[in-house]
């Protein structure tokens, strides 16, 4: 379903000057830095998998996700999703995926949630009957009925995230990209979101790619993790096998991950 091979991406980033002298200098000669966001990234994901894509901040997670969503063109390498190259057939590609950015909302701030959903129906050209079936299912699965009439700005973060999840699945995509979907949520909401991801995967057969820093998400949902650090894949396999050594010391999961990142030299 998803095939990624030797993906490479280098950014040129301009450094902001700090002092007045430097500021003047940078007018003449902007100093630039090469950042290798992805060095050689390869993996493949089968239909119906839930894969955790983990790694420390700045490891290249978002860059990979952006490439897979068609937002970013890599320097070289192959990315095939359902046989399509995301950035070459953007519209056809994105019609079949759902994306949740945990830190950004896709709902219209000032109007009732249901209006945002209807906009999305028109954006994705979902036929009427399909839309009502999909909506009904999502509303009951996520317990949205009391929220639909409220504007997004008045929702709590947990309520909003539930609506975001629904918004990303209205058009019944086969693949769901979740970028930190549980960030900032309280315990109840986290559990609800996890349960829903699990259910969407089981009942709708949605392939889920999940990035998160919360290892409890990973423990609860994921059998396979891909670990990226400094732009390279360092591990691809079962989560328990990755952390078994650390767990034996009796440390908590966060400490285990921190130690692991340290050992790999990517902390």
């Amino acid at each position: 379903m998803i095939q990624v091979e030797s993906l490479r991406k280098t950014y040129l980033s301009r450094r902001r000057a700090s002092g007045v002298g430097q500021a003047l200098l940078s007018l003449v000669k902007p100093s630039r830095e090469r950042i290798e966001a992805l060095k050689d990234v390869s993996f493949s994901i089968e239909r119906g998998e839930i894969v955790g894509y983990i790694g420390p901040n700045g490891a290249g997670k978002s860059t990979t996700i952006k490439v897979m969503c068609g937002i970013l063109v890599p320097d070289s390498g192959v990315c095939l999703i359902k046989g399509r190259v995301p950035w070459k057939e953007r519209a056809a590609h994105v019609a079949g995926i759902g994306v949740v950015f945990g830190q950004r909302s896709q709902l219209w701030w000032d109007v009732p949630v249901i209006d945002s959903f209807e906009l999305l129906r028109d954006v994705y050209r979902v036929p009427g009957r399909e839309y009502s079936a999909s909506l009904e299912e999502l509303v009951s699965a996520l317990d949205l009925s009391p929220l639909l009439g409220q504007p997004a700005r008045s929702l709590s973060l947990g309520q909003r995230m539930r609506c975001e999840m629904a918004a990303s699945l209205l058009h019944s995509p086969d693949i769901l990209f979740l970028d930190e979907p549980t960030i900032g949520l309280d315990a109840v909401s986290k559990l609800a979101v996890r349960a829903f991801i699990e259910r969407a995967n089981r009942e709708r057969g949605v392939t889920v790619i999940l990035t998160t820093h919360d290892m409890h998400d990973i423990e609860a949902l994921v059998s396979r993790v891909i670990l990226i650090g400094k732009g390279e894949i360092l591990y691809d396999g079962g989560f328990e096998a990755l952390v078994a050594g650390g767990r034996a010391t009796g440390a908590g999961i966060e400490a285990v991950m921190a130690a692991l990142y340290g050992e790999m030299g990517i902390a």
Partner: protein
Amino acid sequence: MRLLLRYLRLAAKGQLRYRSTFYLTAFAQIAMPLSLLAGISLLFARFGTLGGWSMGEALLCYGVTQVAFALAELSSRGFDNFPSILANGEFDRILVRPRGLMLQVLGSRLDLSRFGRLIVGGIVLAWAAKGSGVEWTPLKAATIALMTLCGAVVFSSLFVLGAAFAFLTTDGLELVNIFTDGGREMAQYPMSIYERWLRLFFTFVIPFACVNYLPLLFVLGRPGTGPAYALLPLAGLAFALPCLLAWRAGTRRYVSTGS
């Protein structure tokens, strides 16, 4: 089309939700061109003429410009606000949706309070149609309509150009205002009062004169003009082309640099 209507409904709903804000903005949208209008009429009251143009004639110029600008703002605000769309990540969201990018940028920022300027411009235009003493013919009326529409295209193209520019840098974007706000300010007076270099620039580089001053000369029946002048506004459409190309180049660059 259906999607556009949906965007419009959403904008209406969202903006009417905050009545006080909506009324304040709408008031401002009426008051701004009105205060300008007051200024112009006071100047005419004092001096009587502007470079040989009567008040009615000059207001025709003002009305066409205001209506064109209002139409552009009503529809293309998303491009005017594009730096914010880029900064808050909305553009990434737009990229993961299976619709045209321009349509989505347009739809995300429809601003209904801009009707205020449209109304003021429309009223002034209607008044000036009489006050200018023009003997109206179907061709002349059609010319005014074409001027307005093509004027709106020129303003919209400038907004798009500014948005394309925003892909490169967010510094210095104020420069775009020279041509949008500045263009509006300038085009609302008859172009003949300006220095030659300015007239040339706004005829051949950004064709404000073609959508406003020059065809107006024909409408007013100035000597040496003919019906061919009625077609000049079409030059405004030609201006849209490079702006669209710049936008495309900008989006290409965005997906290859991610910033």
